[in-house]
């Protein structure tokens, strides 16, 4: 496929303010909790305070006597209300083990936050008051908290499965070759890294409302979700509601980062109770509740091995994961580690590759997708290990990378893991990032400080990355046993007055789809982007779609928009040709006017064509009235954005405090539709990735109690911790789609974590510190320095 030589209309590529922002920023947008639903009942979930316990008895009498409480239900009470357990759509292997996951637990609670009863009341306050009256007798069981304990099977959480191991998934195209490479390699690096559990913490926690129409059987489900379309299918099946009677609406959604990419118990509970009670039933999540009720991210231990020759040229990469699924499998829990399975060799040209993942159950909140989902983990492992290899060889971290980059002439590149990288040109990004950070001068300053015996140390850390975006070719998803396709749908409709309606199935939750999609359409049609309205997030308006995750929206959904626009233009040009008595092939559309090429004055505005299509008084023979086209696009491949990030940190030796004092990022996401949105995505992503490196951690004690359940204890970086970042980009268009775009939603998060951690180790290496776990908290850093210096306090 050829890349279109656009921008044609001069709108694509403009840094335009986001049209959705005024409503979002002023409170005009309606988020879940803003919905007014007269007569609605409120649900409060009674959750297990224990990580692992049998539920011996539930006494609901006091709760039922509480003013405003309408009903209290246990798991047993609702057992007949579910058509099936909560769905997992990604059984990654034929023999994957998956426990039954019911919306309300029956018999046993398997993590703190597991729902054991629900209180239904006339107000939210009454529902919480009532919940205080629910008395649950538990018998606690030994809790499995660490992945190592889980793997040992000394305590098996789900007895029916007989083991805590859910699945093992190998990807070893040439086992003998890998073994031989490691046996013969001049250098064999083995590193182990741990990705701590992260709490996604979007600004808006989750919320649900199910609104029934008891007489005609319709059911409308409102949810603060990333995936109204997928949710509609899954909720219909799980709650036993005919799909054609289900409508799902995602109101304004205050962020997701992957944690709203599931089918949650509370959604099914509200549906079931709305059916029972015949009135709207709603639930709003509290922040503290969200800490254990909403999925968490990352959570894996990685061992990565590099085989390299005497010069540092990679011969083989072997990655072995132990991944924490949590207590149950959510919608795509098992697949998350596999989204990184193909990328543990990073952007390096490596002939031999081996990946194995073993995933286990623990008595903790289920894990799932969190911004980057699998790719930050893979990038972290290879980028940290490359620094270790550079040391072993005795070259700089920049040099080891340049030596091993996939050469530009090898694209499209057949990766050792079986992918085809679409396009890439890696060295210019690294060169530019070094320039932005002033690499040589900073290195010199670092050496000067060390020589002077300063107590504040500088460290430079590089992270170069490639990721796979544009989820996804449906056939590839089939080969991974994923339960759905990866296409996206779009409708473009030119209204009689030449205003444009666009319908997208890629549901936004803060990304700026309305702005970007309207720019794509306006660019092609030659209209003002403000004359293009983008409709989304309601399955009655946008019946078909696969929603937003995995940096897929632009490369899949945006391409569908582009193609639907092209199709509308084709039809309009037939009408224009009829009006001009010319051949459609001789027409071109520029600045909103059809003209006959080479014949000045022979022209008709698109607006007149649109009105003619509406009146249908004089259309070409056989042509249907109106200008509308619908396209569903299934991409032929993933896209592979890449880039180079460099962090400069300063570490206070006495306190252990790490401060990122400079940061350079050069990202290549192919052609850019709106560079301002690209920058915003990179800014936010970098800060979120630094969050993992320095601050964020879901802290659990040995009993499985979460000790970081509010934003005072769970350290999400704030504006005050955010630094000025030096951004630039290169442009290597993707040949995978006609827009030449790749995706940028997760790049910052993928790249910044290893950049900062490499910088931390770089700053302390001369003190004898060789490794640092995440987050690099002041106490951890201080202890590492003390330990390296012989335990002096």
């Amino acid at each position, binding site marked *: 496929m050829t890349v279109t030589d656009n921008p044609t209309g001069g709108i694509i590529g403009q840094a335009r303010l986001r049209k959705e922002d005024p409503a979002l920023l002023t409170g005009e947008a309606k988020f879940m909790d803003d919905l007014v639903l007269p007569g609605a009942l409120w649900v409060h979930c009674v959750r297990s305070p224990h990580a692992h316990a049998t539920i011996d008895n539930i006494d609901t009498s006091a709760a039922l006597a509480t003013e405003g409480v309408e009903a209290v239900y246990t798991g047993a009470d609702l057992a007949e209300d579910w058509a099936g357990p909560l769905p997992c759509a990604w059984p990654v292997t034929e023999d994957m083990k998956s426990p039954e996951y019911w919306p309300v637990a029956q018999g046993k609670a398997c993590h703190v936050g597991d729902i054991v009863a629900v209180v239904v009341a006339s107000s939210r306050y009454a529902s919480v008051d009532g919940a205080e009256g629910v008395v649950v007798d538990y018998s606690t069981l030994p809790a499995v908290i660490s992945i190592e304990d889980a793997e040992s099977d000394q305590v098996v959480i789900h007895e029916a499965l007989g083991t805590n191991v859910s699945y093992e998934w190998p990807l070893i195209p040439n086992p003998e070759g890998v073994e031989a490479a490691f046996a013969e390699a001049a250098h064999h690096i083995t590193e182990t890294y741990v990705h701590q559990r992260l709490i996604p913490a979007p600004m808006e926690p989750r919320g649900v409302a199910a609104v029934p129409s008891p007489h005609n059987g319709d059911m409308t489900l409102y949810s603060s979700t990333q995936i109204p379309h997928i949710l509609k299918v899954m909720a219909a099946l799980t709650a036993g509601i005919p799909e054609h009677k289900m409508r799902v609406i995602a109101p304004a959604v205050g962020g997701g980062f992957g944690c709203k990419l599931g089918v949650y118990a509370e959604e099914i509970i509200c549906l079931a109770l709305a059916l029972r009670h015949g009135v709207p039933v709603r639930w709003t999540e509290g922040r*503290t509740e969200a800490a254990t009720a909403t999925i968490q991210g990352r959570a894996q231990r990685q061992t990565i091995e590099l085989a390299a020759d005497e010069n540092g040229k990679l011969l083989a990469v072997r990655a072995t994961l132990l991944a924490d699924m949590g207590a149950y499998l959510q919608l795509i829990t098992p697949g998350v580690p596999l989204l990184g399975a193909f990328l543990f060799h990073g952007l390096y040209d490596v002939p031999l590759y081996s990946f194995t993942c073993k995933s286990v159950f623990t008595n903790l909140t289920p894990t799932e997708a969190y911004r980057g989902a699998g790719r930050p983990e893979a990038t972290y492992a290879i980028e940290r290990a490359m620094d270790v290899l550079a040391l072993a060889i005795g070259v700089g971290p920049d040099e080891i990378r340049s030596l091993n980059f996939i050469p530009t002439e090898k694209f499209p590149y057949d990766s050792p893991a079986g992918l085809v990288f679409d396009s890439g040109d890696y060295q210019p990004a690294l060169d530019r990032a070094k320039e932005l950070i002033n690499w040589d001068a900073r290195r010199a300053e670092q050496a000067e400080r060390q020589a002077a015996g300063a107590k504040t140390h500088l460290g430079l850390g590089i992270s170069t990355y490639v990721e796979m975006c544009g989820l996804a070719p449906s056939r590839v998803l089939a080969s991974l046993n994923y339960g759905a396709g990866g296409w996206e749908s779009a409708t473009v409709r030119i209204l009689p007055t030449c205003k444009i309606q666009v319908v997208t199935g890629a549901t936004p939750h803060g990304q700026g789809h309305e702005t970007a999609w309207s720019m794509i359409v306006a660019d092609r049609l030659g209209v003002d982007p403000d004359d293009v309205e983008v409709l989304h997030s309601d399955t009655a308006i946008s019946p078909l779609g696969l929603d937003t995750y995995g940096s897929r929206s632009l490369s899949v959904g945006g391409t569908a928009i582009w193609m639907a626009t092209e199709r509308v233009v084709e039809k309009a040009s037939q009408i224009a040709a009829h009006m001009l008595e010319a051949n459609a092939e001789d027409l071109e559309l520029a600045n909103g006017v059809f003209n006959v090429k080479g014949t000045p004055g022979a022209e008709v505005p698109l607006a007149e064509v649109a009105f003619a299509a509406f009146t249908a008084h004089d259309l070409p023979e056989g042509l249907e009235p109106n200008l509308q086209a619908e396209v569903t696009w299934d991409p032929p491949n993933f896209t592979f954005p890449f880039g180079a990030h460099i962090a400069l940190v300063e570490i206070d030796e006495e306190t252990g405090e790490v401060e990122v004092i400079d940061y350079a990022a050069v990202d290549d996401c192919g052609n850019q539709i709106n560079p301002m949105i690209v920058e915003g995505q990179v800014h936010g992503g970098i800060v979120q990735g630094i969050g993992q490196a320095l601050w964020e951690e879901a802290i659990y004690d040995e009993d499985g109690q979460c000790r970081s359940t509010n934003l005072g204890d769970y350290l999400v970086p704030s504006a005050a911790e955010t630094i000025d970042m030096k951004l630039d980009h290169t442009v290597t268009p993707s040949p995978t789609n006609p827009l030449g775009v790749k995706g940028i939603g997760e790049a910052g998060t993928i790249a910044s974590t290893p950049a900062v951690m490499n910088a931390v180790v770089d700053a302390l290496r001369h003190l004898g510190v060789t490794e640092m776990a995440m987050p690099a908290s002041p*106490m951890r850093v201080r202890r590492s320095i003390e330990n390296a210096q012989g335990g002096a*306090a």
Partner: protein
Amino acid sequence: MIPAAVGYTRVDSTEAALAALAEHGDEAKLLAGGQSLIPLMRLRLAAPSMLIDVAGIAELSGISVVGDTVSIGAMTTHSALEHSGELAEACPLLAHVASVVGDPAIRHRGTLGGSLAHADPASDLPAAVLALGGTLVASGSNGSREIAATEFFTGFLESALGADEMLTGIKVPVSTGGWSYQKFNRRAQDWAIVGAMVAEGGAGVALVNMGATPLRASAVESALAGGASSVEAAASAAEGTEPSSDNNGDAAYRKHLAQVLTGRALRDAGME
């Protein structure tokens, strides 16, 4: 994050507040800026049946400097302290400490009296008043009395205030000698993991979050009085402290930080 049902009354004078307190007794809590009490209520860790809102009592808000004494109404907000030119001249330490409490939203609601009465050892302002050798004015049914800051903090979240008393004013001496506050935290709006406060050229040294109450670092003060250098004095900063352990630091790390931060505070305050 949904509090239990609670009664609410708003009063506009100290007299009315004390009357309401007498009427509702143990069931009542005084509500000032609400920056500590409301979160506790939302978590249902506190469930008073009556809130007496004293934040709007005009006579309890304001800063005045008379002679050598700065008098501050208990309902004066952190933001007012932070932005007072008068306070910046008379007691720059207190103005500075107020400016690093939480974030701007918290500082516009939170009050000096509320912070002191809550007596959180991790809060910034109690240690400042302690380092400055301040005095707290309490009013009750039997009139008002003055309590030295050194006598005020009696235990974790406990003060010398009687059940029928409310804190109405704070007095600190005019203090323009060398001062410093070294607050160590991981994010700008967080409580101090440890904080070290130096007032009046080392005459007062206090520690934040190093025990159940805000503390005077008396070993440091005596060492300085005995002629010790800042380095020597700071070495004894953790002496006699029993800090807690939490996500951000264990007791040993806190003791280490107390020494580092006290040394920095002393040097920042101009001591060799």
